[in-house]
């Protein structure tokens, strides 16, 4: 307890929160195991699983060869046989080598089998740019997965979500993909006990507002919040909606926020063409057209493979200033 009688808030990082979630999952259920490239001895290529090998042993913190398709498929098979695997893919870019297993097996087996074969599998991977890793390590393809019926797609954007999304994901009977934005791992903050389960069915409002809705998720949330701060200094009261779950999308939350503010900016680090931002725009046009006082604005990545050079990379990605500018256009 702290001096004011409130429960102590623990200082932690997104990375440590994720690790704590894994530790909790591995401790709570012996059907759970973690599998992926370098998750064991190396400690995870982003350090997320550091120390777990020592704690749980090489059977349950299982290093795999560089075989994305085989170990993701093995995760599916193990899930079918009653285990609760957590498969880590280093980044979404490499998940393309396992696309067949994810799309043609994990997402379809329940349906093709007439409901006989649910696949209770969690796949974690990093996504996103911002660390000068150039094109093959920087793309945001979670929207592609959100296109696929049969899987649930999550994007924890906060330390709390990093800590508490894994448990409900593991409780799902169906495949769940968790996208961790690479720039969030070092985010530090306070995590308030007691542990609360995170709702993986609904979007959440990270900052209530009345004048405009900034709709976003994952690595773009901090930028949207910073934009909202900046807008508030001008007297524009922005609501920031964190989608949290990219599939299924929380239509009600989107409709409700637009009904409150009548203006929307969608911030999505993926490319604009065929993006999740495009989908959300379409849904607003379908459901909330008469609520709108201005055209929907989108802030997405430039249509270019993400470049290495710092200045170019920054220019390619949605930035706080871009969000503020979009909000200005909408507010007019």
């Amino acid at each position, binding site marked *: 307890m702290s001096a004011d009688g409130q429960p102590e808030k623990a200082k932690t990082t997104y990375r440590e929160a994720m690790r704590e979630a894994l530790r909790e999952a591995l401790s709570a259920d012996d059907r759970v195991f973690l599998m992926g490239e370098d998750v064991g001895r190396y400690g995870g290529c982003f350090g997320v699983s550091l120390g777990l090998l020592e704690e749980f042993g090489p059977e349950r913190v299982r290093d795999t060869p560089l075989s994305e*398709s085989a170990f993701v*498929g*093995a995760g*599916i098979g193990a899930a079918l046989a009653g285990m609760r695997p957590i498969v880590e893919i280093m980044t979404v870019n490499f998940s393309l080598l396992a696309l067949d297993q994810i799309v043609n097996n994990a997402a379809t087996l*329940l349906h093709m*089998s007439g409901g006989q074969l649910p696949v209770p599998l969690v796949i974690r991977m990093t996504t996103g740019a911002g660390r000068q890793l150039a094109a093959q390590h920087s793309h945001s393809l979670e929207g592609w997965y959100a296109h696929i019926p049969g899987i649930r797609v999550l994007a924890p954007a906060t330390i709390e979500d990093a800590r508490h999304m894994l448990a409900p994901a593991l409780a799902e009977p169906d495949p769940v993909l968790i996208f961790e934005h690479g720039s969030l791992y070092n985010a530090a903050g306070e995590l308030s006990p007691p542990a609360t389960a995170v709702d993986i069915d609904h979007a959440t409002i990270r900052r209530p507002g009345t004048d405009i809705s900034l709709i976003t998720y994952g690595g773009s949330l901090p930028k949207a919040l910073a934009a909202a701060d900046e807008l508030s200094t001008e007297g524009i009261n922005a609501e920031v909606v964190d989608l949290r779950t990219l599939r299924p999308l929380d239509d009600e939350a989107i409709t409700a926020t637009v009904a409150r503010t009548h203006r929307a900016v969608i911030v999505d680090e993926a490319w604009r063409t065929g993006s999740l931002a495009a989908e959300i725009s379409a849904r607003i046009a379908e459901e909330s057209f008469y609520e709108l006082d201005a055209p929907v604005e989108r802030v997405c990545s430039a249509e270019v493979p993400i470049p290495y050079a710092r200045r170019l990379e920054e220019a390619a990605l949605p930035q706080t200033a871009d969000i503020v500018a979009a909000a200005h256009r909408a507010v007019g």
Partner: protein
Amino acid sequence: MSLARNTRSRKAPGTPKPAKTAAKKTPTSKKSPTSKRTGRTEVPAAGPDAVHRMDLLAAMLRIRRFEERCVELYSAAKIRGFVHLYIGEEAVAVGVNEALYPEDAVVSTYREHGHALARGIPAEAVMAEMFGRTTGCSGGRGGSMHLFDASRRFYGGNAIVAGGLPLAAGLALADRMRDQPRVTCCFFGDGAFAEGEFHETANLAVLWNLPLLLVCENNLYAMGTALERHEAQTDLAMRAASYGMVAWAVDGMDVEAVEHAARRATEAIRGGAGPHFLEARTYRFRAHSMYDPDRYRDKEEIERWKTRDPVNQLMDRMREDDELGDEELTGIEHRVTDEVDRAVETAEQAPEEPVEDLLLHVTSAPAEAR
């Protein structure tokens, strides 16, 4: 340990005929005098070996007649989609399945009617699936290429070439992690050898010592591409052995040879020896699918292979050994034809899923509804 070896056809000149000794040497622990397939309870004078052969014959004929009916139904437009027939390859499914227990798992491809029937999925459920009916083994959502039966641990029905291999490794991994003495058997074609998923899975399986039986049905063609035009190295057992697993090639037209080899493999796997590879050298008598005009093979080649028809070969052998009379054969034929007739009849009458149920089984029902 690695062993690449070819078990030549026992009909090959100069090869001794070890059929009966092979069958005797392998304990048939799960066998009882009551045949699970023919339902026969009488023990014929010829003894348990003959009963067993009769079972094998009935099982192969059941697949053969089932698929012949599929051809008719397809021509009559009663069943649609891609339909890949197994005719000519029956000895592989039947022989391998003899070595498997109910608690083992089977992963298959789009050419899986034979695997499904040999696994014990009722012909009615398979046929109803072809008709797209609710009573089908996949509720009408899978069709010919996606047969599933969770209760029999039959995990498809995968139409992505090599796509079932990683899945099979995972089923085997789960058993290994929980010390379950079960085998996962994965069927795939020679075409799968060119896919990375085969090699990734072989590597993983040996690294992790998985209880996995890889059965490659080498029918010499991947659609219209002959083996030597799609594989740089056509000795498949040797390639599998290069991963450090025990690998054999066996005459896939000889059901007893397949059974014998599969038993050796599954017994070793159950004993903890890790993954085994079995190449069954076989041939499909019909085209790749119902759409295929089969222009890439000589008629002469097909006819040559038909002289080694697995059903006829076993019948000949049984007649030679006085184990099969005309009356018994007629009896088996009647039973399987009746079964197929009944399957078609019930499938035709089975209800279709209402369109309102279209979106069922995309994700699981919410917890409160489960």
